[in-house]
């Protein structure tokens, strides 16, 4: 309203500058959108071409919508098993992180006790822990426990990055809840654990969904441990390892079918992210900005 009224009053030169600015702005918006979306769009485009076509020439758009790559992959029991492994490992990791992590977060966010700051520091330091530097130590633990080459090795080791993060984010959520809740519960005669399970946990359900999603994404994407601990056993591999070591269905170098596999791996995550984008952004900024 305001601007519309004002526009006739400004000189033509300024109006032109305004159009130019708007044009530049939309150019910038389009550039950002293209930059973020084009590579993946190209991945979808290439996945509809046959491998032979891809190895001959580059095209922006596929000749035809050929779904042979997807058919091959979805009919391949090995590939489907790696998808299953990924789903299994990620889900159990999330469950473990949420159950164990919410306990710890409740203790640190709601209870005043001796040693709290120490534990808080340990957890914060752990969120930045370089997994690679303990790879050889973990390798020893995994072989000692005789779970090398099985998905259990991954379920066992993934808490190293999911758990501290979960605890850290959930702690800040618990801290944000009003203090009266427990006092009321205490007056009503609830034990601390009942207060936690029946009253506070339902209140943090949104935070649990967020952190669970982030844990799921990081577990689904994890490559280093998956590669190290399941290299010997194809049937235990997760999908990133399978994609990275994909050898194709023909004799040529796999390009199109590999990218098709990559698209299949990325799609579940993209769907999750698009559905829960608001929560994810909230969770990420809570984890990073509040630090």
């Amino acid at each position: 309203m305001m601007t519309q009224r004002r526009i006739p009053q400004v000189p033509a030169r300024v109006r032109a500058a305004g159009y130019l600015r708007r044009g530049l702005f939309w150019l910038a918006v389009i550039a950002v959108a293209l930059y973020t979306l084009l590579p993946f769009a190209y991945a979808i485009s290439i996945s509809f071409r046959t491998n032979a076509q891809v190895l001959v020439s580059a095209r922006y758009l596929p000749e035809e919508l050929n779904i042979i790559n997807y058919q091959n992959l979805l009919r391949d029991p090995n590939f489907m098993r790696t998808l299953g492994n990924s789903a299994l490992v990620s889900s159990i990791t999330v469950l473990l992180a949420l159950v164990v992590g919410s306990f710890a977060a409740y203790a640190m966010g709601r209870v005043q006790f001796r040693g709290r700051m120490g534990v808080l520091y340990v957890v914060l330091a752990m969120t930045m822990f370089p997994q690679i530097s303990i790879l050889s130590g973990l390798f020893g633990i995994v072989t000692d426990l005789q779970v090398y080459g099985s998905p259990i090795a991954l379920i066992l080791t993934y808490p190293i990055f999911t758990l501290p993060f979960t605890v850290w984010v959930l702690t800040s959520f618990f801290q944000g809840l009003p203090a009266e809740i427990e006092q009321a519960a205490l007056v009503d005669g609830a034990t601390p654990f009942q207060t936690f399970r029946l009253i506070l946990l339902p209140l943090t359900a949104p935070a649990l969904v967020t952190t669970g999603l982030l844990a799921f994404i990081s577990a689904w994407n994890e490559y280093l441990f998956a590669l190290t601990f399941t290299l010997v056993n194809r049937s235990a591999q997760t999908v990133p390892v399978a994609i990275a070591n994909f050898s194709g269905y023909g004799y040529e170098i796999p390009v199109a079918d590999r990218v098709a596999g990559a698209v299949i791996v990325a799609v579940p995550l993209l769907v999750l992210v698009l559905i829960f984008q608001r929560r994810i952004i909230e969770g990420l900024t809570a984890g990073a900005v509040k630090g």
Partner: protein
Amino acid sequence: MTLLAPVSGRRRPSEQEAISLELVSGLLMIIGLAAFALLFYAIVTNDNIRIAVQGPPIPGVGVNVRRVQPAADAADQTPYYEIEPVPSGPAAVAGLLPDDRLIRIDDTAITPEMSLQQVQDLLTEPGMDLYQDDFVIQITVLRPGPNGTLSEQTRAVAKNVAPTPLVAYLKTFGFVVPLLVIVLGSLIFWLGTRLRRFDVRAARWSVVTLMWLMVGLGFAAVWAFWVNGKGGIVTDAPFDFSKAISAALAPALLIIPLFIARRWLSSVVDELFVGDETLTSRNTRFAWSLLIPTLAVLMLVAARPLEQTFIKSLTDDEFGTARPVRFIGLDNYRRLLDFQITLVECRREDNGACATTASGQIVWERSDVEAAEAAAAREMSAAERRTYTRYTDAGTISIGGGRGLRVLGRDAAFLGAFGNTLQFTIISVALELLLGLAIALVVNMNFRGRGLMRTAMLVPWAIPTVVSAVLWQAIMRPDQTGILNKLFMDLGLIQQPQQWLAASGPWMASIVAVDVWKTAPFMALLILAGLQTIPADIYEAADVDGASKLRQFFTITLPLLRPTITVALIFRTLDALRVFDVFQVMLDTTRPSMATYNYNQLVLNRADGYASAVGVMIFILIFIFVIAYVRISGLRQEG
């Protein structure tokens, strides 16, 4: 502050309750003692430690020597020495057979007159320096042929020393776990003694302890069930239920008495026990009991592996060899970090200009250090040469005037990896910050479709790194089949297809581009969240005061964004320093980052000890950054 009523109305225990209490406290004390006993038993029966203490039959060589008296009907009645290679030991690998007759060790003739002890002393050479690397002894034997002949053969057997008991102990047990067992064992024992004095706090702690012990035993039972039933790391064998059940039975049965004890104790805890408890101490118990699972998991997956990595980095451990592990001090680190910088000249063309390769890189002459190393290597004996690591070229930086600074290292590959990682970190984080800031400023404007834009920005972040590496590999194909080449040629930016990922091409820029694509939008989202916390009225006030948009950006936006940017920067730096996926998928082993170098050493070279040292180096580097982070962001002190 005491919110809880002091326990009153305590009644005297009935005779039956007194007995039950004795039983429960006894159970706790037994558990405490059993923890000690188990630790002791595990240490005493550990094979590595036993071998280290007693020494193998003949340490390291892997042969037993036996004095043989020929059979009564043999023509030659002189006794001789036969050898028995220890299966899969270095002697067996060298091709020695059990009925080989020993005649010489390192040119010392072995005569039947020598005592067995003397022969073994020759093999073990106790005076040898323990820190020396492997050396080889020549064992000459007579081997009986099929037609009764004896042919002389010489075998080289790698000899090494047995691990010291300390190294064997540290590698298997370390510090953390035994310390924990001792502390927890003593605490549980102490709880048992306090129970008998009707201490209410001890009773409540006992209830918690018993519960977590039950959970722990439950996990132990499940683990034992699974591991024993599966029978091997990767097997097709069917699951062996009888074995699994028999292994899981003991821990599972142990749960029962704990369960009964806990139930009884929690039912009488408010009646039989005396003492005051403040709210704080009750809270502390509650909090720690909730923290136990997290701490246990972190212990298993972080503290213990970290300790293992530190310990292993001081040894020369390798997977899949029979060679015992030795303590070598800081040798791994010395090899990793030992470097020299020297001046080199470029190779001159006839016209005096520097010669370049086809891709435009300057060709350098050999440096004095390398020449000296080569000369020294020629002087060495074969054995010396094998154990000596030369200084090799890790990269040259041109300083103009046809001269360059060359970095030489004992492990040039690691120095290269270090340089790659540092270069990658600095460039990619800087670009991500600038680009992220720019994107955030654009998206922060109010325009239609902003929500869609934010969604689009999450796409690169949501795509797994491996997937984005695979995708960009397809985009950056080195010939005209790559879309990036096609796009750039269509736009007229390049004339020839570029080899984006080849060692002679712009591979670092390519890798950085992939990482920037994946993380810059994400960085933008973080900065966007920071931007939205800045109240709009500040800008309105600035508008009224007539400050230009640019001025507003530098005096309002940037200072207020500083905390957000600092945190985002540090997190990204830490991520970039441990970059693995992109390098591993796109460059394989040829141009490693520190993380891929660690992986290559561990998994491909099986050099466990050396890889551990690399891991520790990464850990220290990142630790320094974390400390800087805590310092800079000035973590709030609370509680």
